[in-house]
């Protein structure tokens, strides 16, 4: 990666970050629930164009990893836990390898890599689970028994995890295809990407 590629990655990372904020906002407004459960899904739906354009413009190993690392750094520095940082980077590296399989040119591999990358956005939500454990500890410390805890803690189960992952995957698929369509329609026609 040369300086030009790094700066290009930086700019698209900011755009991705902005779209992520918009996605979170829309998710909170739509579900009228501040737990941001569907924020990664809506982000995946709208950020596909930025991702596909970055892949098409740089076409080198490292751009996606770098983007994930900086996004993770944003998460980390803005106070989300380490739990958000590590899975985010991991997803970025895997997404980079997947896209490299198709030499950053084959649509299908780019799409799969976008699916993987979007899963990384779920990481900040994992924090909710660690908070849940702390809450259970607190309740037990106050002398309540386990049955009481189960009565209080509603809808935090494995089914929810499937809903989360499934919604992200479906939205990423649609968003990625929309992104590829828009990139082909506007940028390939203008000759800005090959």
């Amino acid at each position, binding site marked *: 990666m040369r300086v*030009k590629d790094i700066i290009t990655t930086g700019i698209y990372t900011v755009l991705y970050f902005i779209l992520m904020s918009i996605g979170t906002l829309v998710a909170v407004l739509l579900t009228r629930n501040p737990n941001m459960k569907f924020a990664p899904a809506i982000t995946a739906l709208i950020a596909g164009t930025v991702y596909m354009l970055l892949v098409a413009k740089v076409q080198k190993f490292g751009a996606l990893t770098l983007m994930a690392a*900086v996004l993770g750094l944003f998460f980390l520095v*803005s*106070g*989300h836990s380490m739990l958000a940082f590590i899975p985010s980077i991991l997803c970025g590296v895997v997404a980079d390898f997947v896209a490299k399989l198709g030499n950053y040119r084959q649509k299908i591999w780019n799409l799969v890599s976008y699916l993987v990358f979007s899963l990384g956005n779920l990481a900040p939500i994992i924090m909710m689970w660690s*908070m849940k454990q*702390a809450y259970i500890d607190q309740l037990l410390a106050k002398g309540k028994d386990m049955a009481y805890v189960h009565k209080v803690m509603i809808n935090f189960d494995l089914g929810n995890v499937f809903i989360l992952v499934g919604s992200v995957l479906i939205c990423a698929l649609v968003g990625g295809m929309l992104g590829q369509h*828009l990139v082909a329609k506007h940028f390939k026609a203008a000759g*800005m990407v090959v």
Partner: protein
Amino acid sequence: MRRGYDVRTKLMFLLVANLFLLVNPGLILLWTLIILFSLDFIWQKTYWRLGLYWAFFTIATLAVNADLNESKHPYLGFFLLGGLTVLPCFMVGLSILRTPVHEFIQSLRKWHIPESILIVFGVAMRFLPTLKQSYCNILDALKLRGEFVYVYQYLLHPLGYFEKILIPLLLNASQLGQDLTIAALTKAIGSKQKTSYIDYSFTFKDYFAWFSLSLLVVTYLARIL
């Protein structure tokens, strides 16, 4: 310049706050951490912000300790306790984001963070205000053509709005990337030898903080072992 903790000290605070988020060390250790970091706000004289944090922490601590009926309010206690463990992280993190970009990058360079990550971070900070400017320009250009003049039009055609805003933004961004690259190369961004006019080094405050933080972690470890 009113200086509080060094950026690296703040990162250490962030790590300890994260550790406490994961392991839930109890209210006493949490409050010690909060008080330690409050010194930074006092040194920088941003009292009202500190006041807001303290108000929340006090209310949440009182509420968590009070005998709530959790089954009546299933989320209330959860969010209060969650806020109590998460908010120290946000307090430290937002304070890191408010430091000048130059200080942040120069301090991290001493820790040998990869230069590419630092460049991307710097570009991101530089690019954010420009983005807002170009968004306003695009919106004005659209209005000139009679599109999306009123708010209800956004809601009627969200997909069209999305495309007509995003594509010009992306085009703009690639142009700007070109310019930034040239400007940055002129300022020798790729060179190995970096110098800085201001030297950010540890002061007494930082040594005090590192000592107290290690004491905090040792106390926690001693308690669980």
